[in-house]
């Protein structure tokens, strides 16, 4: 906990993130490059043919979609319980990226589903859960924009994020239950052949690093924006 609070100071955060950022950026680029190279070198799948390589951009997007929401939830908890000063900024910064990766997961999922089932959208449990997650993101971002007072907005959104976090397992459970009723297809059935594992894991890592890099830059931007606002307020005084 002390570790986290050491970087609660915006100056410290700027210093640390400034040092770490190039490393993250390079690591991201490397992982994605290697992942793509390996991904395009795999043999076609027995059942899915060449469409199996869609797994390498669909699953990582889904992973980041959920990771981003988890990050928002953790930041919200830090903000509400421990009054960690930078967490509100961090939570708000993560949301657009989370929403984007969720949407990306839905689009790639639909394009993966079409050759599989013949239609672009099938109400399978995973895609449906992610559609609901997208709405959760929209609601979160809308609430931030709607409440004018920043402190109030931060606290309201923190509560919303935590309520959402508690609900997400329930939603996923209910959607799973619902899809078994209707015998939905599943886009990804369990076992992954070992030859696909390496590109998948590397792409997942690449996507996660990408999110962390972009998130860091966004937080730094928000810190600068706040400094600018404070300066303008002083000048007006």
């Amino acid at each position, binding site marked *: 906990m002390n570790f986290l609070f050491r970087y609660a100071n915006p100056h410290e955060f700027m210093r640390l993130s400034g040092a770490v950022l190039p490393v993250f950026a390079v690591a991201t680029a490397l992982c994605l490059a290697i992942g793509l190279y390996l991904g395009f*070198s795999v043999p076609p799948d027995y059942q899915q043919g060449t*469409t199996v390589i869609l797994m390498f951009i669909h699953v990582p997007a889904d992973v980041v979609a959920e990771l981003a929401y988890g990050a928002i939830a953790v930041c919200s908890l830090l903000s509400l319980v421990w009054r960690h000063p930078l967490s509100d900024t961090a939570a708000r910064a993560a949301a657009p990226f989370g929403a984007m990766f969720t949407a990306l997961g839905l689009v*790639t999922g639909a394009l*993966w589903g079409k050759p599989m089932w013949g239609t672009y959208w099938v109400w399978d449990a995973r895609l449906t859960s992610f559609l609901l997650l997208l709405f959760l993101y929209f609601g979160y971002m809308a609430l931030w924009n709607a409440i004018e007072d920043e402190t109030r907005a931060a606290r309201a959104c923190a509560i919303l994020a935590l309520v959402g976090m508690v609900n997400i397992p329930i939603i996923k459970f209910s959607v799973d239950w619902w899809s078994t009723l209707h015998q939905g297809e599943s886009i990804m059935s369990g076992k992954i052949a070992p030859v696909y594992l390496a590109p998948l894991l590397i792409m997942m890592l690449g996507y996660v690093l990408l999110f962390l890099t972009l998130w860091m*830059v966004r937080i730094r931007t928000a810190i*600068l924006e706040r400094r*600018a606002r404070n300066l303008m307020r002083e000048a007006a005084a």
Partner: protein
Amino acid sequence: MNFDMGAYGVYIWPAYGVSALAIGGAIVWTLVSWRRAKARLAALEKTPRGTAAPSK
């Protein structure tokens, strides 16, 4: 690397394309906002604040 996707190409390339566009867009947006914020802050910090009453 194998780029011959056969009949599935019509799904695979758009999927990779959308992903590239979205990710590229996110990177561009993030960098542009950063540069804009940095420039604005630099401009504000240069502005002489002599017109305001001196703070204690």
